[in-house]
């Protein structure tokens, strides 16, 4: 049975995947850009039409491939461009987070945030605070496919 | 793998999972290759070289290794299997309390006298030991101070063997025997309409193939890992829907076809290619583990290839 051991070769370089919904949080990220708000560079944003497009298998795949943290940003409940998208996303992510925690994976590695198109500052703050949480948690060794880590 | 300090359980007659994975593990990386520009570098995984001892192997599992040898050691030889097989000394342990699902005698296997590198009998607290092959001799020599000459050992062992035979005769599957002549009528069995009825309730899950000690099918896949590609081998089951996915399509699309193939391989095709040796050792794991209790005994009876003994 392969024990998952972490190999802290070089200074731990965290890798965070952010799924941002095109209408709100992606626009919030753009606004954070235009306002020149900075946040850690190891956060990489994937654009999805709505937070309800994020399939838990994408998140598990990201963890499997070595992501240390995954954050899903969507519109504030009620403001979704597709009326009910983020409500479904909210339920799906609540159950997924609870199950990951049940399996012993640190719950804080997966986070859901509601950021509107007008909240550039909040986007930058959320990303910075998430990066700090992940740095504190250290490298993700529990859900990582040992063959895939670079 | 046994580590220091873990208790040894010799009581259970048959293990849940078969022992084939000590020679033919469920997943195994065969080789890896990498492309630098136009050059392709090949990295052969070195063959497992560590010496191992398998203690407490039942007669049926030992017989299954002989069947697996017929597959993996025939040309072209599977080096990985061969390396593991040669580096391992098998010590058979005779059955003292057979299960009701055991029918190893149907295939001419003596539960009480295992034919491994060395045989052992556990009677009460003392263990009787008898080396059989050169490897067995070497091992016995290496640990000879553990042994004391057992006088009258044969008598006690023979007594246990008789006892086992008597117990087995009481079992429900005692009278189950296959007629070689019936099993060789390949076309007739293939056309039999019994398959329809039998295969209807099969789930097509693959438990029987993975717990069976003699099943040896595997799938090879290339796994893209960053800029390297690893070729790895893993068990596969003929019961899975995509088992025979080929370039041209999938010849066995219905569950009936897959179900029939599984049993015909055990009862008909394998004996035809291997001098009449059935691809089954009667360990009974399938009888216990199949979710819908389908097994070779029921199929054989339905096909009418049994003979009464």
């Amino acid at each position, binding site marked *: 049975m392969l024990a998952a051991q972490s190999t802290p070769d070089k200074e731990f370089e965290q890798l965070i995947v952010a799924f941002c919904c095109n209408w709100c949080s992606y626009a919030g990220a753009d606004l954070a850009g235009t306002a020149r708000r900075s946040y850690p560079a190891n956060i990489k944003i994937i654009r999805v039409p709505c937070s309800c497009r994020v399939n838990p298998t994408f998140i598990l795949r990201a963890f499997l491939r070595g992501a240390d943290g995954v954050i899903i940003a969507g519109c504030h409940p009620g403001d979704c461009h597709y009326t009910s998208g983020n409500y479904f996303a909210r339920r799906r992510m609540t159950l997924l987070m609870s199950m990951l925690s049940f399996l012993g994976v640190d719950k804080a590695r997966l986070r859901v945030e509601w950021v509107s198109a007008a909240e550039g500052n909040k986007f930058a703050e959320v990303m910075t605070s998430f990066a700090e949480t992940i740095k504190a948690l250290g490298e993700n060794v529990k859900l990582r496919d040992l063959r895939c880590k670079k | 793998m046994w580590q220091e300090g873990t208790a040894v359980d010799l009581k259970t007659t048959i293990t849940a999972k078969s022992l084939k994975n000590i020679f033919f593990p469920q997943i195994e990386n065969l080789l890896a290759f990498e492309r630098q520009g136009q050059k392709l570098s090949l990295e052969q995984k070195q063959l497992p070289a560590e010496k191992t001892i398998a203690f407490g192997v039942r007669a049926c599992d030992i017989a299954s290794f002989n069947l697996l040898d017929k597959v993996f050691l025939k040309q072209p030889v599977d080096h990985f299997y061969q390396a593991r097989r040669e580096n391992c000394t098998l010590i058979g342990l005779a059955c003292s309390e057979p299960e009701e699902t055991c029918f190893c005698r149907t295939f001419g296997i003596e539960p009480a006298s295992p034919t491994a590198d060395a045989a052992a009998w556990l009677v009460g607290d003392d263990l009787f030991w008898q080396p059989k092959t050169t490897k067995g001799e070497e091992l016995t020599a290496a640990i000879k101070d553990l042994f004391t000459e057992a006088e009258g050992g044969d008598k006690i062992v023979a007594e246990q063997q008789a006892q086992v035979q008597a117990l087995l005769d009481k079992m429900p599957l005692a009278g189950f025997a296959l007629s070689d002549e019936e099993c060789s009528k390949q076309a007739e069995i293939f056309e039999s309409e019994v398959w329809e009825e039998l295969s209807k309730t099969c789930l097509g899950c693959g438990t029987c193939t993975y717990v069976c000690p003699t099943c040896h099918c595997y799938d090879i896949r290339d796994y893209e890992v960053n800029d390297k590609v690893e070729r790895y081998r893993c068990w596969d089951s003929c019961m899975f829907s995509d088992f025979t996915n080929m370039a041209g399509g999938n010849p066995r699309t*219905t569950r009936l076809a897959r179900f029939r193939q599984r049993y015909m391989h055990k009862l008909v095709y394998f004996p035809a290619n291997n001098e009449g040796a059935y691809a089954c050792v009667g360990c009974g794991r399938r009888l216990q583990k199949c979710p819908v209790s389908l097994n070779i005994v029921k199929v054989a009876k339905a096909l009418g290839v049994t003979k009464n003994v």
Partner: protein
Amino acid sequence: MQKIGVFVCWCGSNIAATVDVARVAESVKSIPGVAFAADYRYMCSEGGQELMQKAIKDYGLSRVVVCSCSPRMHEATFRKAAQAAGLNPYLVEIANIREHCSWVHKDKEVATAKAIALAKAAIAKVKLNTPLVSGESAVVKRALVIGGGIAGLQTALDIAEAGYKVDIVEKTPSIGGKMSQLDKTFPTLDCSACILTPKMVEAATHENITIYTYSEIEKVSGYVGQFEAVIRKKARSVSVDRCSGCGICSEKCPSKKAKSEFDQGLRNRSAIYIPFAQAIPNVPVIDRENCLKFQTGKCGICAKVCPAGAIEYEQEDELVTQKYGAIVLATGFEPIDMAKFGEFNYEYCPDVITSLEFERLTNAAGPTQGHLVRLSDGKKPKSIVFVSCVGSRDTTERGKTYCSKICCMYNAKHAMLVKEKYPDIDVQVFYIDVRTPGKSFDEFYRRAVEEYGVQYTKGMVGKITEEGDHLLVHASDVASGAQLSVPADMVVLATAIKPAADARKLATMLTASIDTNDFFTEAHPKLRPVESPTAGIFLSGVCQGPKDIPETVAQAGAAAVKVLGLLSKDKLLTNPCVATCNEQTCSGCLACEKVCPYGAISAEYKLVNVKGLKERRLIAQVNEALCQGCGACTVACPSGAMDLKGFSNKQIMAEVDAIC
């Protein structure tokens, strides 16, 4: 093998300053499938697009990745450019290395590494792009305008003039909105009713315009070109056809204790009332809360006295369903509530009033027939103080952070009107900054000071207290540094303005974006100020942000032109990134149909050929016209049969793999 062209944009220095664009182009060259990679100073410019088109032709590129600014900015531009070069526009992917990289990371090394990672993700995704063709959906040649103020009227008139049908839905019993409450309007001081009433009549009589007053929007569904709105026509309890507007019923009505909303509560009105003289339609409405007939079942005098027999107590709310191609939001504004501003003593001193109440006082049709008198004792005031920025420019949670823009002008207007009619009244205005920008506005304000002797004092009013029969205004004169306690007979507060109360409810209904101050967010503050990001929804008037009447009318016209741009098309290109169901793996459980917000999924029995086996199965079908591409169904589908074109499971997985 794909032939991918990668174009890395400098964006002048916006990207090139913190991202080594040459190294990005260089490092992607080694990725299998990339046939061409180059960096260019301005990819969105003429030259940039030509570079791309030339490369597509010369290298026979099958896919294009542009590493530049946000796709929300120039995705359309690059797609058109690719299309012009003969490549399907949906084979272009954008890597956002400006807003998400160069602008937010200072260290060049780090930013370049991230840009390369984002480029790799885009390349991984573009390999799996499939050529898509936009579908078409018909456009209903009818527009809906929500709100009957000057903004709604102007937009409706401009649309109707172009020959399209327009419906106006107004919440209050009459169109006219806040402008109908004003006395004079700046900068020309012409009477508000004189310039508004003709527009109201024009709208009422225009054959292309239908007006629903005393009505609200119940529900809106559908999407651009195919909206469907349900309008709730609240029961007026008066028959619009038979009523002649004689007003006898209002006179005779015994219940007079309701406060008139039109007069900002400065006088009462009867339960059956016409809000103001020039109201259109000139038909009264029964306010059921205050009507004795509805509350106690007795009375019924109005029915008896009505010469035309137009009173219909049993009238019920009526739901009208109507299809529209475009919807314009013109919901206007309201003054903020003074409850949190105790220091001005608004609730206890009747002589401390808001500017809108002042408008009613000076209006000839107002409660005092235009005579400027104190509300406490009815006497003529000898001195009036105007206070600017009450609740505006306030970063605490009491007020609004923004400047309400119109108060400085109407303060000067009020000051001049008082001085012109009653030269002996002392008028003082306390201000922080007088903001009267634009054509002839500053001259207007200076005229109040130089010709009419209005006293402007720079300094915010701190507190208002009562002293005997007059008020004491405590302020400071920031210029001289002195503390003032100015006696005043009347104080007018220029309160901040906020969007109408039900703006947020409408935003949810229309899925239009709305900001934290409840103003509707425009698609782009500079380039698309009159459109909502939600296609087919347009913004007219103060609902989009504080503005005065000239700007409102200008923006109303602009919104109308945008609507005409939409309605003039017979067919609209629909978004091709819609869901699609793989018949081979669909097990017909229709979990997708339950999560689809647009009801775009139905089910049909079809003969499906799965690996040679023909079977009759229930298969989910996507109506490509209704589907908006949110993707909820793709996750609800356990077998992965439902996928989304443009954002397919494999594409997103490829991006995740490329990033991790």
